[in-house]
């Protein structure tokens, strides 16, 4: 990858990367830093990264940084301890997406990441497996569980509303 391609990848992928990180860690400042670190790593390594694979490289680096960060901050919660009732409220929701985004914050970090990679970035299960280092079937299991949870959460909210 050359300099021009590197700069193009900043234009093309920094927003997506930022949104992915922001959705995961919920901290704008930290997400900005992580985007910066990720691109810095890419720059150091840009001669070895093909332009066609740069997006997946960026998300792979960002994902692993994120996992380290989450582990350090011990934000991994036991899924069984999450009680959707504690997070529900009676305000009117403007739309389904708002509910969904509220619900996704309740997911365990690993499920959240794979769903975001799938829905935000449109990666295939195989690609997500490559990025996260999980097996493809593990990715599918996470996504399946996440979707089931999201669906149930929406069901609960609808009942409450």
């Amino acid at each position: 990858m050359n300099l021009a391609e590197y700069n193009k990848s900043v234009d093309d992928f920094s927003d997506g990367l930022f949104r992915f990180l922001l959705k995961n860690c919920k901290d704008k400042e930290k997400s900005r830093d992580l985007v910066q670190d990720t691109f810095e790593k890419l720059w150091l390594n840009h001669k070895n990264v093909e332009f066609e694979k740069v997006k997946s490289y960026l998300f792979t680096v960002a994902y692993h940084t994120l996992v380290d960060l989450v582990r350090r901050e011990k934000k991994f919660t036991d899924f069984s301890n999450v009680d959707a009732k504690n997070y529900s409220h009676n305000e009117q929701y403007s739309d389904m997406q708002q509910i969904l985004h509220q619900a996704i914050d309740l997911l365990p970090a690993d499920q959240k990441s794979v769903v975001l990679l799938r829905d935000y970035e449109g990666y295939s299960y195989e690609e997500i497996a490559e990025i996260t280092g999980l097996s493809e079937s593990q990715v599918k299991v996470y996504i399946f569980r996440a979707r089931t949870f999201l669906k149930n959460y929406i069901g609960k909210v609808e009942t409450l509303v």
Partner: protein
Amino acid sequence: MISLDKNNYESYLLDYFEGTLSAEDSAEVEKFLSENPEITAEVSDFEIIPLISDESEVFENKESLKKNEVTPIFFIEKSEKKKIISFSKYLLPSIISIAAMFLIVFTLFFSKKTDLNIAQNVYSLQNNKIFIPVVEKKIEKVQNHFQKISVEKLKNVSHENSVAEKTQNQTKNTEIPVVAERKVEKIEFLASISAVSLENSLIFEEINFKKSETKNERQNYQDAMTIPEFLVHKISELKPSNAWSFTKSCVKKIADLTKSSLHFDYREDKNGKVNSYTFSSPFFGVEKSKN
């Protein structure tokens, strides 16, 4: 043909609901669901509602991530024990100004008799040597040596002959290094180096460099850096906080002398520890945070 059980059904169900399974495999899933009513109940209203990203959230300062074409002044490669820096002809004036400063430092510092090995290698362009500061802890000899040079003394001396000649003549007779008056600005800079030197026992590491003959050769170096970049790179590896202020004053002075837009700054946390630094030049930019 897939084989479903209670341990592996989830990944197949996802494919099933997404409609990506073959007819045969779909039949297998349906059979599994009919045999396991509790799972059927669990997934009965399974529905894929994709999340849509909020496009209004953007990474604002994209320009800060972008890089400009690097015009390397010199290149670093590993070579046995010493690092070799080869330099291109670009921005030669800035090399010369920096080189001149180092030259003066060393003529000054080593104009007196000393048993330090580094003293014997005064910088000269002909010999393709340059000195880069490094911090080492408690080197008594260096400290004592440096202490003899004070800012006041440096400012008051004047002489019309060349630095090299004069310092040679003065070597045996005086403790005060003699330099030409027109070099005063540079001397002040050197004085600030020596002040930092006292605290951190800053010594100079000798680095050889050679001209790179061809464009290809230059491109082959992975670690192309300009001299100020190299300074920052070198010093940011070091822990003492004074190395940071030293770097800052170095870069500022180099920027003034070469009239280039170099900038270096750092931030300290409550305990006075440096937690991030920024460095930018017309060729290169980096912002690092340690957290």
